[in-house]
């Protein structure tokens, strides 16, 4: 991976030093372990980890970062490696710090509606614990059964319920961060609100491991809804589905999920045994709240769906569970359609969704490159999965060309090049189009101030 910066390789003396910090059993250079630590979910971006370490405390992380800063060795924090943008792959080599041994839920406060966790806690494990107290942490990424809270905070992840409940950034109120210098800092407060100067918590959330290592995270929580209802709105064409989305989102029903799936996605789900059916497109809908609110809300969404000439069906029980499982599995199921996939994640204002959807298909058809589209349409987020269709360079170039054009369209629509998957490695070339040169310089300045040796997850987020 090209970069103007030069980094040190991990030598035996470095391994000895790392063993001294975390213990001899908690440093590995085995080829298999390195391959795992170099991988992502879906993304073909592979890193080249030279060592993996498993610390158990902020103090140990501090020792690792201080040492690596001094030696100029790249450091990549890693949760479950479920990123689809290469965020957790050590593309510049160096040391991977796994959070698998920092996985304790330290506190759940019902009174304050807060949880304090270590970064390696799995999203669903946290929610299983919170459920006992009638609480939940809402963002719900599709990969919630494996995503770590540290990874979610690093990536500002979200998912099905962002349309109603917002994204991870909205819930992080306090962070303990180990800076590249080894210094451990506390950012933010536990207060429900604050007006205390620059909001460094919001800066660090979504920084993709480029500014520091989150060793303790305080999250706001919500009371668990009493009930949820699911319905499916089948449309004859993508336009009919996307044109229903504004009214669904604007409805007093306040849907807790609005998931778009195109015809090819529906066929894939049917072929994979999930209880969907063929249509031009579909919206998988959810409402929540009290029993009455969830029920009435879904009735309102049904009315909106039908008013656009679409077909609606309520879904419950095993079918409901299977439909959501199918939706969660889509990111991986797409592998059945193509040996290589480029996972797009554009986000546009909801008013531009019909235009964006139409442009995506027009571009794909025009370039003769296959694609499927699904995503959290309620918050404008479309996962455009480009089917590379072959393993040769030409096929990849064609797919990347299409990807670039789709991203340009998203920016043209006033949207974001990444809604929830982060920038990682792949989207860096589009950062200037997204932010402009001046804003990028501010970002580089921040990076240089916090991480003067640029050891934290180099090769990610910021273009060279």
């Amino acid at each position, binding site marked *: 991976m090209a970069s103007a910066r030069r980094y040190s390789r991990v030598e035996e003396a470095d391994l000895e030093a790392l063993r001294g910090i975390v213990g001899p059993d908690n440093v590995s250079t085995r080829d298999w372990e390195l391959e795992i630590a170099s991988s992502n979910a879906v993304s073909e971006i592979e890193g080249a980890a030279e060592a993996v370490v498993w610390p158990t405390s902020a103090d140990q992380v501090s020792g690792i970062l201080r040492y690596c800063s001094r030696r100029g060795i790249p450091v990549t924090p890693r949760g479950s490696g479920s990123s689809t943008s290469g965020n957790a792959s050590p593309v510049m080599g160096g040391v991977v710090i796994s959070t698998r041994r920092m996985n304790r839920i330290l506190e759940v406060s019902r009174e304050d509606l807060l949880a304090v966790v270590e970064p390696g806690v799995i999203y669903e494990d946290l929610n299983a614990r919170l459920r006992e107290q009638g609480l939940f942490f809402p963002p719900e990424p599709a990969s919630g059964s*494996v995503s770590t809270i540290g990874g979610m905070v690093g990536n500002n992840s979200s998912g099905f319920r962002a349309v109603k409940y917002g994204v991870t950034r909205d819930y992080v109120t306090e962070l303990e961060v180990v800076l590249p210098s080894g210094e451990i800092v506390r950012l933010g407060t536990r207060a429900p609100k604050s007006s205390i100067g620059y909001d460094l918590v919001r800066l660090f959330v979504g920084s993709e491991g480029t500014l520091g290592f989150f060793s303790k995270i305080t999250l706001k929580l919500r009371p668990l809804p009493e009930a949820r209802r699911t319905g499916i709105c089948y449309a004859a064409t993508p336009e009919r589905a996307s044109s229903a989305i504004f009214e669904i989102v604007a409805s007093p029903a306040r849907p807790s999920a609005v998931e778009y799936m195109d015809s090819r996605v529906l066929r894939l789900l049917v072929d994979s045994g999930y209880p969907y059916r063929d249509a031009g497109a579909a919206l998988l809908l959810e409402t929540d709240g009290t029993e009455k609110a969830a029920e009435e809300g879904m009735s309102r969404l049904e009315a909106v769906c039908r008013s656009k000439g679409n077909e609606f069906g309520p879904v419950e029980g095993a079918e409901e569970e299977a439909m959501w499982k199918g939706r969660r599995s889509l990111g991986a199921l797409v592998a059945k359609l193509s040996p290589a996939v480029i996972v797009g994640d554009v986000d546009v204002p909801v008013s531009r969704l019909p235009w964006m959807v139409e442009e995506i298909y027009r571009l794909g058809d025009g370039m003769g490159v296959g694609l499927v589209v699904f995503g959290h349409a309620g918050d404008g987020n479309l996962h455009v999965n480009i089917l590379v269709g072959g393993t040769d360079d030409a096929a990849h170039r064609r797919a990347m060309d299409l990807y670039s054009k789709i991203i340009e369209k998203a920016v043209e629509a006033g949207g974001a090049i990444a809604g929830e998957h982060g920038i990682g490695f792949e989207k860096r070339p589009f950062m200037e189009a997204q932010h402009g040169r001046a804003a990028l310089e501010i970002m580089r300045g921040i990076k240089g101030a916090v991480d003067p040796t640029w050891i934290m997850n180099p090769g990610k987020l910021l273009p060279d």
Partner: protein
Amino acid sequence: MDHEPGEAAAGLARGIRELLGEAADVAALCMRCGFCNAACPTSAVPSAYLESRTSRGRAILFRGLLTGRTVDEPLSDEVASDVDYCMSCGRCMNACPLEIPIPLLVGAYRELRGRERGRGPAEAVLRRYEALDRLAGEVPGIYNAAAGLMRGAAARALGFREDLELPRASRRRPNLRSWEGGDVLLLIDTYTWAHEPEAPEAVWRLLTAMGLRPEVVGPLDHGMVLLDLGYMSRLKEEGARLVGEIGNAARGRPIVIVSPASYYMFRRIYPLLLGDAARRLAAGITDVYGLLMERCRGTGRDGGGVVYHESCLAKSNGQGDRIVGALRMAGYGVQGTLRRCCGLGGAWGLRRNTAGISDEMVNEFLEEASGLPEGSTVASESEACRFQLRRLLPRAAVVYPAELLRRALEEGRLHCAHP
């Protein structure tokens, strides 16, 4: 082994393809999403902080091997001991969007490594477990005496855990009338035949209460231990024979199993290994709980409280909801579910090389079960779980769910309509 780097990996990949055919190819599609880790009972134990010990780690190993990436020493003791975190329960396949058959890949790995490096004595003993179960059924006194000696140094010498306990053989066999050409086939596995005759008897009683006339087949082996140990060539041979015999006997009739291991092997594993004949047979495999939910109704009388332990195989087979549904219908208040794995995993946890992992799982299970009131009734459909739960929860009454349903029938809490 004096392989050149890469040579061993390439040989292993060839061997896996030869053993598994197209079932191996899907592994190359692995997107590395890690959903399998969330389902795998061993991937969250403390010592599995090394990702090579997790389900996803195994998927990445096989993906790498089958796509030409090399691991320098894939057959080393270190790699093998990490692969041994797999207990072959198949929960990973349920969670995997692509249904990558990790247990088959692990089984193939174990067979190929066994060919290169030899096998331990525990594997040689367990390989003949069907013969041992038959011995247990035919001469229970001799079997029980021998089993009682298998502790301490003797167990260690044979590659088993030192504190090994083996299930005792029952002194009686299931006593069941069989209707040749009846409505359903009732498959009795060798384990319950030898050790827990009341389990097939309970299923038989429920079937007859529904007006069905079971043709009883067995005792027969389902092959789960061969899969777990990685005797894949033999498993394919045995599986083909069983599928042929049972297919001929069934002639399109539903086939009701007693053990969830039978369900797992006939419904999920053999179709992947053996193709069309096994797929046709799989379509007829069912359990008594589904039939009961269709044909019986509860009378509303209270049967008391039950705690349900969902075994790994029940999770893998998707049987749990049916079982809980049937228990509730029969008036049992299912007060909670023990979801943690009991740590035995069939015969997996008996071996010395997996004893430490098994103990980690037991610790987590005991923590979950710590609030269980004394005298609780705990239902689990897996025979290995029942054996383990009786050891771990000596103050609980551990039962086969069909046995509870049989009691409900006799106590008038279930009414079953004749078709």
